[in-house]
């Protein structure tokens, strides 16, 4: 209970300037995420879900507020350190899967290990294992365009987890999937969380997905409107 939170956000604010207009995407968000948690960020379109995930993922920097990830202040990291931090400690899942089309499923999953300098034999073994875990062991050699949407997202999830990150940030991971496939993907994320203790922060509109989440943070106009945990958790 005394371990530092994986994400500790205090008063995060982010503004965008579009010509004369200024959009306040986040207006002082406080959020603590502990090790092993699965968290859904809900809220209407434009409420700031993606912006929050970008900040948590060190893909963008806040205008105000402080963010500490696993005890390290994000503001203390330079560009190269943030890149290395993402490579080693974080995983990403996108609505549009974002697999490299010229690489096979296996090679896509190997990518984070390759970036981390893992040897080729070790890479192959771990990517194979990660694909088997998402139920795609038999489709290793397929290119993304030979896979269905659900299968692609499973490959992307394997890619996000293969290097055993602290946390995975998933922005609308089921946004491009039908409801049945979406439920399977959510189930997969939950089971991977149980197996590895990886933190999942999932931004979504999907009511079914929100309903299954152990913890829900609702954003409204860039502010945290509610933060609830399931009674059973």
């Amino acid at each position, binding site marked *: 209970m005394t371990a530092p939170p994986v994400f500790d956000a205090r008063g995060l604010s982010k503004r965008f300037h579009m010509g004369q207009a200024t959009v306040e995407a986040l207006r002082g968000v406080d959020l603590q995420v502990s090790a092993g948690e699965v968290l859904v960020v809900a809220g209407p379109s434009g409420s700031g879900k993606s912006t929050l995930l970008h900040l948590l993922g060190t893909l963008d920097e806040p205008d105000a507020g402080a963010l500490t990830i696993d005890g390290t202040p994000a503001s203390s990291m330079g560009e190269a350190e943030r*890149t290395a931090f993402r490579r080693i400690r974080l995983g990403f899942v996108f609505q549009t899967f*974002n697999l490299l*089309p010229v*690489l096979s499923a296996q090679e896509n999953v190997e990518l984070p290990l390759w970036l981390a300098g893992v040897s080729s034999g070790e890479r192959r073994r771990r990517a194979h294992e990660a694909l088997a875990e998402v139920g795609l062991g038999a489709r290793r050699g397929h290119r993304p365009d030979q896979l269905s949407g659900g299968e692609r997202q499973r490959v992307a999830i394997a890619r996000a987890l293969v290097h055993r990150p602290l946390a995975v940030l998933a922005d609308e991971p089921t946004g491009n999937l039908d409801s049945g496939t979406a439920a399977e993907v959510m189930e997969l994320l939950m089971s991977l969380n149980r197996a590895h203790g990886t933190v999942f922060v999932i931004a979504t509109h999907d009511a079914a997905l929100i309903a299954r989440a152990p913890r829900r943070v609702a954003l409204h106009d860039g502010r945290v409107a509610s933060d609830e945990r399931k009674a059973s958790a």
Partner: protein
Amino acid sequence: MKLALLALRNLARNRRRTAISLAVVATGTAALLLTAGFMAFSFEGLSEAMIHGGLGHLEIALGSASAGRTATLERSPAEGLDDWEVVQRQVEALPGVLAASPTVHVAGMVSTASGTSAAFLGVAGDPARERRMGFSVKLRQGDPVPDAPPREGEDRVMIAQGLAQALGVGPGSRVTLLAVDLEGMLNALDVTVAGLITTGVQELDTRYLRLSLGSAQRLLGTTRVSNLLVTLDRTSRTEEALASVRSVLAGHQPPLAVVPWTERAPFYAQVEALYVGIFWFLGTIVFALVVLATSNTLTMTVMERFRELGTLRALGTSVWQVAGLIGLEAVWLGLIGGVVGDVLGAGLIGLLNAIGITMPPPPGAVDPIELRVVFVPEAFGGAILLMLTVLALAAVAPVLRVARLRIVDALTHT
């Protein structure tokens, strides 16, 4: 999985566009090879024509005669070599030397029995040695002057066509040569026209004649020669031979000057500069065209893959790895295009040479020339290096674009 391999696979994504880029690079490469080959042919042809047309690779003359007048083609034996046969033996013993052949230059008047006369420029040499050196006299009519030294009263000459025409003489005609001998006296020599020749140059054909060494020395009352012309087995050995001939003759009294053909050939430096200038001009055009075309495609590639590049950055790929991915695509284009261009260029050169194109005589020349394109081995490697440079330049803007990419913008890019 290497970055270079990933770049290669990315190239295969838009096959049509890649094919067009490769075609541009390959065409540029082949164009440069053909240009280089044609220039080398022209230049080699010109050089060899000058060397074997009478310049030789090296000239050995009296230092005092040569000083400040290296480019002089006509040398009076007044300032000539007395012991030329000794020098000849020394030089001909050196490796790579085909022959060191004596020449005597004589200028004067030639007149016919009917009273027509004209100025002439006579060159006398050693016919056997000149043949060995590849000096060819282009005989158009009649016979050459015999190799053996002529007996007194049996002197023969070969007259250039233009001069023969002006005098109205042909093979078998008798003419008289008048010249001032080395004592300053006017001397005359009756000779028979053996044959008509051409120098290949119209201007020179109106004044030129050739005679044997013995005849020229008789006319000038001397046993000296104007100079020795040295010819080598290969033109590329000129520098090396220059040094060895100079060192062999270093102690000679009076001092001798050894001058390479490049310093004696008329307009050599200008012609070389002209060729190099033309080559640079064409090269720059090809360079600019290929840079523009490939830079445009690479930029389109970056734009199209914005989201993918953003994803790579999100996953922790460094800026330089992502920029390198685009740079490596450029390198592949340059390398593959260059190699294809080399093959294409070699094929075209072979084809042109097989067809055999004859070109009209260049200005001032007499004979038409057979067009050939030379394989310049250095140009094949050079063209690939050039294309790599071209592509590196073309990649600058796209790579900078990647380096400046904001991850969040790239991820939300549609």
